């Protein structure tokens, strides 16, 4: 079997993936007050993983990231729904979000919001769904 010569794309990917993942997390965090958020952050995150799938083969990446992306998607939606229920425990309407300012050791005065938990759910759902779609299209078995 002929081994494809893909040394360039593999070398670039190894560096680029780190940058894309950092950018994805940055997009995710900034989404609270600025453009960004769980959806777009999740898409950027999964684009990094898709690049890995393209540069290396599916089996290798699967061995290193042994998660079922369908479960990731379900877990994401579950987290989002459960943060909605969080409001119900305090006798507020479903999906009520709250935030407050805290003095943290390194960050100083930081705003912590429950909406971030909801967004984590959204991001996981997007990552899970997009990768499930890509993998089921890409899998030719």
């Amino acid at each position, binding site marked *: 079997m002929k081994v494809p010569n893909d040394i360039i794309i593999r070398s670039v990917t190894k560096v680029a993936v780190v940058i894309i993942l950092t950018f994805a997390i940055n997009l995710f965090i900034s989404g609270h007050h600025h453009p960004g958020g769980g959806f777009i952050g999740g898409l950027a995150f999964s684009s990094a993983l898709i690049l890995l799938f393209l540069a290396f083969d599916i089996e290798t990446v699967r061995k290193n990231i042994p998660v079922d992306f*369908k*479960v990731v*998607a*379900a*877990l994401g*939606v*579950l987290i989002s*729904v*459960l943060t*909605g*229920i969080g*409001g*119900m425990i305090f*006798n*507020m*309407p*479903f*999906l*009520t*979000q709250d935030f407050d300012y805290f003095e943290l050791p390194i960050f100083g005065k930081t705003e912590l919001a429950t909406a971030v938990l909801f967004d984590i759910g959204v991001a996981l759902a997007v990552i899970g769904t997009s990768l499930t779609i890509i993998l089921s299209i890409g899998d030719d078995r």
Partner: protein
Amino acid sequence: MNNLIILPIIIPIIAGLLMVIFKKSIKFQRILSIFAIVSTGAVAVILINQISKDGIQILHLGGWKAPFGVSMVADMFATILILVTSIVAVCCLLFAFQSIGEKREAYYFYPLFLFLITGVNGSFMTGDIFNLFVCFEVMLVSSYVLISLGGTKIQLRASIQYILINVISSFLFLVAIAFLYAMTGTLNFAHLAQRVAEVGQDGLLTTVAILLLIVFSLKAGLFLFYWLPGSYSAPPTAISAIFAALLTKVGIYAIIRTFYLIFYHEPQITHLLIGILAAITMVLGAIGAVAYGDINRILTYNVIVGVGFILAGVATLSVEGITGSLYYLIHDMIVKALIFLLGGTVIHLTGTSKLNEFSGLIRLHPQLGWMFFIAALSLSGIPPLSGFLGKVFITEGTFVTGYFWLGGIGLLTSLMVLYSIMKIFINGFWGYTVLTEETEKGTTKGLMLPIGILTALTIALGLGSEGIQTYVDLATQTLMNPEIYIRAVLGIK
């Protein structure tokens, strides 16, 4: 604020998600699915009590008051439908346990079933037309997968047709919503109703109303039903039963909601159109039901006749008509599930859906035969079964408002419905017994329980229709007086 309202939507979705995560254990999925649907039904019962005591219950999601946020509104109409949905869903699940097969169970049958229920319950509860679109999509995406799950040839052919038609109707729905938003500047049902009443329903708004009618007709199978017989007869019995019982009803619910709450100012255009479409639907559906000699086809055409009949009552815009439509809607959900499960059992036993290939089933399966007979009578509205009262009220409504032709067609087609179902009964259950216990393709073991429950329910609903009268009256009262709904949602004292 009443957080109970959201439970019928989030209980099924949480249960479904847990099942995706723990997909290995089928037993866990079965228990959890029954538990989820039963608790949804219990919530609906509590809500019905609260509504009859304190009026319409509202939940503004995230604390954002209407018309700015998305509101969930539980009025009597929607909550009754959620209760019936839960009952029908439990019966279809019990039927599925025995008949759906391990392969489909392993490929997310139960999660998809619960997501479907999530979408249906969401459509009933929402107080926002865009959210209605979203809930429609949740329901439709689950139904796309359910209809093609298993991947047999006939299913794939039906699912392409089904997906295409629904994608087009979703597209039109979005266009209609955009027009509506451009003209009124709001998406909340109550706020829409208020604004349309203020500015008057002019030609443009009526056009949007007709566009919405086309969209909901595609979903409900009113006139634009040509996709329905193929799609509903393709999937396994448990799935086609839940489709027949619920999916068209969501379209009917949307028609009633929009044309009784928002667009009721020009009934000589919109409601007359609904009436004409209903009449054509009943006639074409009845012709189809009489013409075919295939159980699946006969039953799916009966779904279409039912849709036409319910909307005949809706078209009258009268208290009698809508009372009848409500009674008939409840009856139709139960009895359509019942007749599909019965038909499916017959096909399961004989291995064929062609009527001329078997006969004499009643010798081996007397219970099945008699339950089929009861279901057939109930379907065509013979007293004292559940279809009777709805039929009386709808006919009364059409006569009171001068739609004599509509009432006449309704009565004529119910005779044709009776004939088409009796055709199955006479050909399939009477006559020379072809099959022996050895040559049967399957057993009725476990399948009789859900059928028995639904049969008991159609008898109970017929004999005890007085019992639910107060609730149905409350629902019609809210529907006939949009003010009650608007005040409750917008918080006007």
